[in-house]
């Protein structure tokens, strides 16, 4: 085996020598560690850990990557995946911050696994956090009220069905700029009021305990709501900097704004586009807003002036 490897690498060297340009420098081993880590950061966690076998100098490189990408797809059994996650978090270099963490798991996730990963992320200064789970055993995102993080900038909690209740995240993440929720059940009446830095909010088929939603975010520039099965009747927007409002769904809620309409509004309505436009004109102030509306088959919309709001 070793002999075979040697021949192959000799061949490789000769191939390299035929092209005179590349000499011994073009080895990953000779590159700065920051670059090695950067390359490992783009790999799935399973493959990153496996690099420890490559050579002696690689034994603990994976424990220092700034990015962790967990995906159950690389495992035959969910239990093996959970064990893997547990071990990775245990063996990581705890002095190293994790900038980005993604976690994708099918099946039903136990609260213990989710909590373990979330706690790790928050205690290691995570900036970008993305979770996708099919179901949760407790039916709840294990973000406890005591959780808080000043480093978090992007948070994405997605689930495959609607059983996951989202606790009030308000006030936990004071630097959060992007929040993306999918398939979450929102109990709180004003779930989007405690994020002073929020610029982008995406609500993808979330259920609301009430039919009225309130968004209060001074810096919010982009709001997207996809609502196919969940119904919101009214949407109170206290968002003076909103530039784009996007709505995809069957019934456009009545928008109530305190600072005029956003600069652009995009509506994709499955049933009745006329109804949604009526919904808009009812609010008034539409003269400064570009409205594009379309149904499932293409753009049929009309523009209501394109002046940018200052």
């Amino acid at each position, binding site marked *: *085996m*070793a002999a075979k*490897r040697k021949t*192959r*690498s000799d061949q*490789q060297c000769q191939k*390299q020598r035929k092209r005179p*340009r*590349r000499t011994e*420098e*073009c*080895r*990953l*081993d000779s*590159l*700065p560690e*920051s*670059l090695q880590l*950067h*390359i*490992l*950061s*783009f*790999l*799935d966690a*399973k*493959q990153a*850990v*496996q*690099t*420890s*076998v*490559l*050579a*002696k*100098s*690689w*034994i603990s490189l994976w424990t220092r990557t700034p990015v962790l990408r967990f995906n159950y797809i690389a495992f035959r059994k969910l239990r*093996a995946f959970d*064990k*893997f996650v547990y*071990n*990775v978090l245990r063996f990581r270099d705890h002095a190293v911050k994790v900038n980005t963490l993604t976690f994708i798991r099918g099946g039903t996730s136990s609260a213990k696994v989710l909590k373990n990963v979330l706690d790790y992320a928050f205690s290691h200064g995570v900036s970008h956090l993305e979770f996708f789970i099919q179901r949760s055993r407790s039916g709840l995102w294990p973000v406890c009220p005591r959780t808080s993080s000043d480093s978090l900038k992007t948070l994405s909690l997605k689930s495959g069905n609607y059983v996951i209740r989202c606790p009030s995240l308000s006030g936990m993440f004071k630097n959060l700029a992007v929040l993306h929720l999918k398939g979450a059940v929102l109990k709180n009446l004003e779930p989007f009021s405690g994020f002073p830095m929020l610029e982008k909010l995406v609500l993808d088929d979330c259920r609301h305990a009430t039919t009225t939603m309130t968004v209060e975010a001074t810096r919010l520039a982009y709001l997207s709501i996809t609502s196919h099965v969940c119904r919101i009747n009214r949407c109170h927007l206290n968002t003076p900097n909103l530039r784009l409002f996007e709505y995809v769904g069957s019934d456009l809620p009545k928008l109530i704004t305190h600072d005029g309409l956003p600069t652009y509004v995009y509506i994709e309505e499955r049933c009745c586009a006329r109804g949604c436009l009526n919904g808009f004109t009812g609010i008034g102030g539409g003269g400064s807003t570009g409205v594009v509306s379309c149904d499932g088959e293409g753009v049929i919309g009309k523009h209501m002036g394109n002046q940018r709001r200052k």
Partner: protein
Amino acid sequence: MSKKTLTLMSKDKQLFNIEEHLAVQSVTIRNMVKEDGASSVIPLPRVDSETLALVIEYLNRQQAPEEDEDYVKKFVDERGEIPTLLELAQAALDLDIKKLMDAACMKVADLIKDFTLEEVREALRIENDRTPEEEKAIRDEFQWAF
């Protein structure tokens, strides 16, 4: 802004000219220019001439900002050999050109992501310095990852 030209010197002492307003996409060069005006030749002791030629080609691109992401992707795709990409990544690191470094590293990761460990060793030219017994011991230690 006047079109001032800077001269960069590769490891093998070849000289390359580039307009200053394009060269300052490199944070390293931008800082040099700020400090002393960088009137003389800027030496890049770790970058060979072929790699520097690529970097210059990249810096000279005439892309609209919204097409830039696609351009840098295509740029590294067309130079899809791992040794070239590693040199490019190192040059981009030294010159602090983040987009180019990200794209080159991502491309390397993309190329090796479906490789077996043996293939990764070959592709990245990593010498296995463990005996088969030692390797087995490591695999056993990390059996939860295999």
